[in-house]
């Protein structure tokens, strides 16, 4: 079978039946997206893709293949961001086969030509999936970076007392970030007491405890004392059953208790007015 010949015949066929095929293709895709994109927009996107596919099939244009993948990648990325599922994204391409098949089904001499188009569409469909998952991964990476930034505030509780409310799981990367921010704040504010509140930390295992101990001993090297607060009953039980020792680090049930301790150590007393 002459591949070049079939490709060219298919290209000619697609050019001749442009309106019919694109019309049917748009219809199929619009049914799939269920109103999330307007018909005009879908039609415009598919017109672009269609023109590029014809150019690639006709084989005359060397840049066409690159342009086609770029357009397809862009389309898949947009679909991923708009919350379409991978199937919905890929079906958008695969339904071209259906649209064309309906036209060539009657004429037997076009079937081999259709086969070459079909192979090409399969490749394009897989391509959309790759671009789709890459876009999704990018979104996930962006979100976790944003979360890392958001989830580690260091606040001033009192003159000379800073608080670090920790929310979420503590891993090495976050501990490093928390430690750096805590130490920097100690230096810039001249505070000599820090309260690390772990109310928002869901579980405390040996690794998390190790991270906490490291943070406390680094703060001590700067000359600041740390208190760990917000230990919930379940967490206390876990800590004891794992045999974790916090040594001489003060631990308190609530942030209020820890603040009271810090004030007492600073020689301050809160009295009613």
């Amino acid at each position, binding site marked *: 079978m002459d591949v070049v010949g079939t490709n060219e015949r298919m290209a000619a066929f697609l050019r001749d039946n442009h309106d019919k095929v694109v019309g049917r293709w748009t219809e199929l895709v619009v049914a799939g997206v269920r109103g999330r994109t307007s018909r005009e927009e879908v039609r415009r996107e598919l017109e672009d893709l269609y023109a590029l596919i014809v150019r690639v099939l006709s084989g005359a244009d060397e840049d066409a293949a690159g342009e086609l993948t770029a357009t397809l990648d862009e389309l898949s990325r947009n679909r991923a961001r708009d919350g379409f599922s991978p199937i919905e994204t890929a079906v958008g391409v695969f339904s071209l086969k259906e649209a064309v098949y309906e036209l060539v089904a009657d004429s037997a001499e076009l079937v081999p030509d259709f086969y070459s188009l079909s192979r090409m569409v399969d490749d394009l469909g897989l391509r959309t999936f790759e671009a789709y998952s890459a876009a999704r991964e990018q979104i996930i990476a962006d979100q976790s970076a944003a979360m890392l930034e958001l989830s580690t505030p260091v606040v001033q509780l009192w003159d000379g007392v800073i608080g670090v409310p920790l929310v979420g799981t503590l891993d090495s990367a976050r501990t*490093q970030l928390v*430690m*750096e921010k805590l*130490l*920097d704040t*100690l*230096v810039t504010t*001249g*505070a*000599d007491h820090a309260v690390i509140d772990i109310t928002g930390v869901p579980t405390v295992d040996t690794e998390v405890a190790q991270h906490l101990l*490291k943070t406390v*001993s*680094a*703060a*001590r*090297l*700067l*000359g*600041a004392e740390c208190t760990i607060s917000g230990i919930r009953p379940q967490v206390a039980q876990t800590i004891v059953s794992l045999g974790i020792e916090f040594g001489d680090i003060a631990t308190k049930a609530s942030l209020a208790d820890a603040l009271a301790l810090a004030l007492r150590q600073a020689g301050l007393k809160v009295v009613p007015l």
Partner: protein
Amino acid sequence: MERVPILKIGQILFVSIQIDLQDESVIRLQEDLADELAVTRAHGVIIDITAVEIVDSFIGRMLTTIGSISRLFDAETVLVGMRPAVAITLTELGLSLSGVRTALNAEKGLEILNGKS
């Protein structure tokens, strides 16, 4: 080899390290400080490491040793002005500098020593 100067202010010896610490300089500092403590009978030592960017395990251990030596002369050692990056490195190395007190800056270090006497 560069020497670290030791300044006597009242009953306190003040050491401000302004150079890149070499092993020999630290050993020399330890010797000089011991001599100085014996002569002046100071009751406190402040070591200012604000300008020090790198502290390795050897220097970390020597700082602890200086603390122990000072205690033999009944003087307390306060290490002041450690940079956050240095603190993180020392923690990662597992050095907690036990026996040496720490303070954020020279002023707070002085308060600790004066509060003691």
